[in-house]
């Protein structure tokens, strides 16, 4: 069992972005998340890695309620996720997510992709929403593509739009679910550059990724998962230089040649 956790005091509360305590989840009979304990502080950058099927994606999908956990507690920005729909809505408004497959809306232009949620969730006017969208599209360096449809863009461009779309909601936390895994090698860098900038600006980030260079550069801590549980957490330098757990060593030896 993990280290026992004390309930955060109000002072700490404001510093904690995400708190997962004793979280378990099952898919049918399959025990997919086991005893997850993880506290993410504000402005902290966490990279989660591990072999496929180890539960990384499920873990971050629990944070914005795309998957529901069955035991333990998850607190996002001071709101505990329960079965109550309102708690989910509250959490989702402050948590942005970027998917492996981009999941842009193919029937909307790039601009419309970015303005949909601000208009319908935040109640912004179309003009305001478009201004905000253009701001973020400039930040991900594709303002000139705003009137194109997603299928007209390259994979890297699509993923940058997806990031801009999430940012348009002014989230406090960003979740990245293997954002570069579906990209051709030459496009990975343009996406990672945007993510690095975001990290430098102080965004709280949880990133599921196998990009070890990215982890070294921006991560405050690296989380290694295997078999549905957290095996090791450490700062990136320690993690890569002196992995402590046998499984971590094995994993690193396989992916770092």
């Amino acid at each position: 069992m993990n280290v026992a956790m004390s309930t955060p005091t109000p002072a700490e509360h404001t510093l904690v972005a995400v708190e997962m305590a004793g979280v378990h989840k099952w898919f049918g009979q399959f025990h997919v998340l086991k005893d997850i304990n993880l506290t993410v502080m504000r402005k902290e950058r966490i990279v989660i890695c591990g072999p496929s099927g180890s539960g990384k994606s499920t873990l971050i999908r629990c944070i914005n309620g795309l998957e529901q956990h069955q035991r333990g507690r998850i607190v996002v920005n001071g709101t505990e996720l329960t079965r109550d729909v309102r708690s989910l809505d509250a959490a989702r408004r402050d948590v942005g997510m970027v998917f492996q497959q981009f999941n842009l809306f193919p029937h909307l232009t790039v601009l419309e992709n970015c303005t949909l949620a601000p208009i319908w969730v935040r109640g912004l006017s179309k003009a305001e929403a478009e201004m905000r969208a253009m701001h973020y599209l400039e930040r991900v360096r594709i303002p000139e593509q705003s009137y194109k449809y997603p299928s007209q863009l390259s994979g890297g461009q699509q993923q940058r739009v997806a990031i801009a779309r999430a940012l348009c909601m002014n989230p406090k936390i960003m979740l990245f679910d293997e954002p570069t895994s579906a990209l051709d090698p030459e496009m990975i860098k343009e996406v990672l550059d945007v993510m690095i900038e975001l990290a430098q600006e102080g965004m709280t980030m949880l990133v599921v990724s196998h990009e070890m260079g990215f982890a070294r550069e921006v991560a405050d801590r690296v989380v290694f998962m295997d078999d549905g549980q957290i095996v090791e957490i450490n700062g990136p330098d320690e993690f890569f230089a002196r992995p402590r757990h046998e499984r971590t060593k094995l994993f690193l030896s396989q992916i770092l040649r």
Partner: protein
Amino acid sequence: MTTRTFVRTAFAPNEPPPLEADSTASRFARSLFATPANFALTVLSVGIVALVLPPLIRFLFLDATWSGTSRDDCLANAGACWPFVRAKFGQFIYGFYPAAERWRPNLVLAFGALLLAPLLIPAAPFKRTNALLFFGVYPVVSFVLLTGGNLDLQKFLLGRFLQWTTVAGVGFGIGLRWAFWTDFLFSAVVIVALVAALAALLRASVFAAVTAAGMVLAGLGIILLAVDLDFGLAPVETRSWGGFLVTLIVAVTGIVVSLPLGVLLALGRRSRMPAVRYACILFIEFWRGVPLITVLFFATYMLPLFLPRDVTFDTLLRALIGVALFAAAYMAEVVRGGLQSISRGQHEAAAALGLGYWRMMGLIILPQALTLVIPGIVNNFIGLFKDTTLVLIVAIFDLLGQIRASFADPNWATPVTLYTGFAFAGVIYFVFCFGMSRYALYIERRTAAYGRGS
């Protein structure tokens, strides 16, 4: 403050999922009453069920008349009049097929079931032989059994030119005529010679061409012999056929004829030869663009005008031709769907092995494509099965036609006769169509699973 670093010392065990308060029952309850709108929908649904189900059960079972022999027994009850169905059962199933000869349709149905069952079960062996029996032998046997055979064929292709043969019109005493069979032999020789000449012209193998033509003609000869021989069966005119028997005959004939025809049309539609392609497109789109009822009218009123004056078809045969052509066009589109889903790689691989067009199609492409479209074929058959009811518009009495006709019988005129007849027909149609649709679904899932596995 929590620890910044962590190393797991003991691995967490796999545990069974918790028996939460969120059981199936509570999820069910939540799905019904979670929101006011949901609650309203639940109330609405319960209302509809309450409106439909109890009267239906009362009519079919509780208030129904189960025994009796005449309409008087049914007048007392408000429910279904099952004695009516019992009294008319033979008519519903066979029409006016003579009672003494009903063992023949029974035999046909039994053969059909025996051949079809192993064909439908994916694991059953001998598929090829089985399919050959069902699509090749069974129709001929059924034809002889149902009509009585002994067609008394008069002349074949060259009959016009071989006038002398009709003089020697005496038969062998077993239902065959000299005239026809000499005509057939002459025609066969002429055709084989033509084929050989064509093969020589194209520098193809003369031997192979002659063998192929000879086999086709031999097959044709055997079929003609079977329908021409006198087996001593009393002839039964198609006019007296009816009921479910006709429903099955129309549907099964439609599918048996339309499958090979549909395959050829689908191949033709994908052919690189423009004349072949456009001929097939025209044929397919024509039949798909018109309602079946116009096709039946076409077959009934127009087909006789297309044929030489001394050739007459009976009504059922005309309808069968119409249905078969109509079904073939739809079948072609189903098969085309299958052909399109076979990747180019398969074509290229087959071509790389040096296979010609027909071998490539027959050995590589069609087996895969047809396996893929089995659900489509079954769904086509369901449509055809339902469409057979349309023959009642051209005065052929299938199951629905017989039931409708039985409403006019004054001996069974009761307030519930109408509903009873519809209930009986409805149950039969539903059981067959629903059963087949479930089968199609089962094959579809099985194919999908197989596809994933490979």
